[in-house]
């Protein structure tokens, strides 16, 4: 072991009469530990949220959505579009969909609430989104054939069902903002449905607004007669989203508009990334404070060890060697604090995630508990930042120590 490390280690570990300095050095180590652990937890939290939300967005949405050339223009020949889409390499499935905006009322909530109705072909929808896996109660297959009460079936998002206070078996009425001529007077188009299933996508935006009905039912409700509003498609590999989207657009021509999932949620995804960055910076300030602590400890240590420094210089330690002794102390604090902080952070992340410790109000967040997902690069980045900060913190005090005049150090009382 070099004398620098030997002395630095002893200075850090020896019991000393000036408890003040050892308390401060303890605080500085704690600072690094807390900083590193907090950063790791914060990043794991952001990653957890992002992954969770991303998965939900990816699952609940089709990867590509084809619209008519201008907003609101129906697609008159959906089968042709579906065929073209299926011919594009990389597209695994495509399915025609009718999206309608309307109002839904129930017996218990006659005031109703705004909804988006999605008319689907169940067999094809299964291959495009993960709707079928998200049914929490009831039976989605009842959508396609008439229920026992001869009313058409509807599946509701779970928060929507809660708002309307309905369960499978109950009735709801859908009202569209389009007028229908009756022999007496024009009335809004409306139709009763029987709730057959409740869908829990875990995505509040969807679960609070969406109702799912059979495609033909939606077409007749909106008088579309064979036309649809969009055609949705799923890719076999999400990584090629952009190229496949462009290829689909090329094959469909300019009568159609192909939009991909990421483009449609662009602001959302970039907001997520920005949030992660801002959070890292905020928590990174803790590491900065820890580094400042290290500077303080080292400056106090240099003052406390003035006579030792004089003796060491007299024994032939070069000025650079004195610097290295104090640099080693700072680096040891950094290394130890980072290692412990890292383990602490990882342990806490695991615990928080495995036991779903932090619950969330479901109306506000997309998920019922805070997920923590550790990424290797994040952990390495945090450790690197912490070690670099500790190293930088040693520069000033160790340089000052190396500049001490031996005679003054020997005379120091």
């Amino acid at each position, binding site marked *: *072991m*070099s*004398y620098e490390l*030997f*002395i630095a280690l*002893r*200075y850090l570990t*020896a019991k*000393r009469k000036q408890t003040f300095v050892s308390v401060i050095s303890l605080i500085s180590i704690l600072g690094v530990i807390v900083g590193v652990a907090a950063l790791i937890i914060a990043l794991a939290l952001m990653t957890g949220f992002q992954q969770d939300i991303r998965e939900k967005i990816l699952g609940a949405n089709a990867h590509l959505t084809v619209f008519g050339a201008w907003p609101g223009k129906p697609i008159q020949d959906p089968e042709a579009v579906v065929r073209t889409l299926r011919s594009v390499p990389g597209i695994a499935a495509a399915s025609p969909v009718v999206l309608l905006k309307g109002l839904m009322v129930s017996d218990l909530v006659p005031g109703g609430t705004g909804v988006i109705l999605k008319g689907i072909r169940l067999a094809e929808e299964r291959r495009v989104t993960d709707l079928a896996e998200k049914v929490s109660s009831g039976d989605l297959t009842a959508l396609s054939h008439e229920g026992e009460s001869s009313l058409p079936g509807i599946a509701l998002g779970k928060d929507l069902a809660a708002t309307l206070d309905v369960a499978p078996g109950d009735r709801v009425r859908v009202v569209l903002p389009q007028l229908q001529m009756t022999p007496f007077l024009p009335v809004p188009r409306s139709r009763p449905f029987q709730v057959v299933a409740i869908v829990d996508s875990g995505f509040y935006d969807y679960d609070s607004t969406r109702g799912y009905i059979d495609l033909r039912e939606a077409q007749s409700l909106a008088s579309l007669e064979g036309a649809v509003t969009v055609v949705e498609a799923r890719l076999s590999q999400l990584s090629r989203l952009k190229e496949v989207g462009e290829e689909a657009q090329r094959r469909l021509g300019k009568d159609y508009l192909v939009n991909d999932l990421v483009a449609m949620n662009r602001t959302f995804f970039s907001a997520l990334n920005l949030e992660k960055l801002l959070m890292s910076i905020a928590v990174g300030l803790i590491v900065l404070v820890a580094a400042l602590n290290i500077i303080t400890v080292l400056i106090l240590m240099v003052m406390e060890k003035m*006579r*030792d420094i*004089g*003796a*060491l*210089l*007299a*024994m*032939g*330690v*070069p*000025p*650079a*060697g004195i610097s290295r002794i104090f640099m080693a102390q700072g680096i040891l604090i950094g290394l130890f604090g980072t290692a412990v902080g890292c383990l602490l952070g990882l342990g806490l992340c695991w615990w928080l995630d495995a036991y779903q410790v932090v619950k969330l109000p479901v109306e506000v967040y997309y998920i019922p508990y805070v997920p923590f997902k550790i990424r290797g690069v994040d952990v390495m980045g945090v450790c690197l930042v912490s070690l670099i900060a500790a190293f930088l913190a040693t520069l000033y005090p160790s340089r000052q120590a190396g500049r001490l*005049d*031996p*005679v003054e150090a*020997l005379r120091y009382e």
Partner: protein
Amino acid sequence: MNEPIIRTQQLFKSFPSGDRRLQVLRGLSLEVERGEMVAVVGESGAGKSTLLHLLGGLDRPDSGTILLSGREMGTLPPEERARFRNREVGYVFQFHHLLPEFTAEENVALPCLIRREPMEPARRKARQLLEELGLGDRLLHRPPELSGGEQQRVALARSLAGDPSVLLADEPTGNLDLHTSELVFTLIRKSACRRGAATVLVTHNERLASRCDRVCVLEEGVLCTLSGSRYKFGWESPAVKL
């Protein structure tokens, strides 16, 4: 044997004092041979410590030359000077200046560790030295747990650990009682003699000074060698001008 190990010529050293300069050394010259022990006496503030700092290269003179074993200290770059000091110079101070967090053995091992010798041989050598100085049963004590005389003996062991050719002792017995002073002095004398080191011993103790090979008085910035009986009364009284 009579090639001087320490050879200084015309040393001048001053310190800033207010807006003027305090001239401490004014053309001091000193030669010490291998195995020779020179006592330096003088009033407090005469510049004795300053002289030892200059001799060991801890400070630089304003002018003049210092040759240690034929090397000019002043011209060496700091790293070289430190290495040279580590190999050639041993210091003993009035206040032992041992490192309080290290055991006696570790303190004595430091000079060898500083020159990058491995830990085990350095410790072994330290044990030998401490045993030689009668501290075989104090190896694992830390300085605060030792008596003043023991502390100075550990400090002496440390100064000898690097096998220096020059031993510089600044009032090593200044804080010790008569009997302990005697013991420490004898140990310094014996071990320096055995190793053939050139020793400069600053002391206030008349009896100890008289037992050195030569006694020099530092007065008005220069050294005067006292010969024969003169020193017995000469340097004690400031009224006597040399």
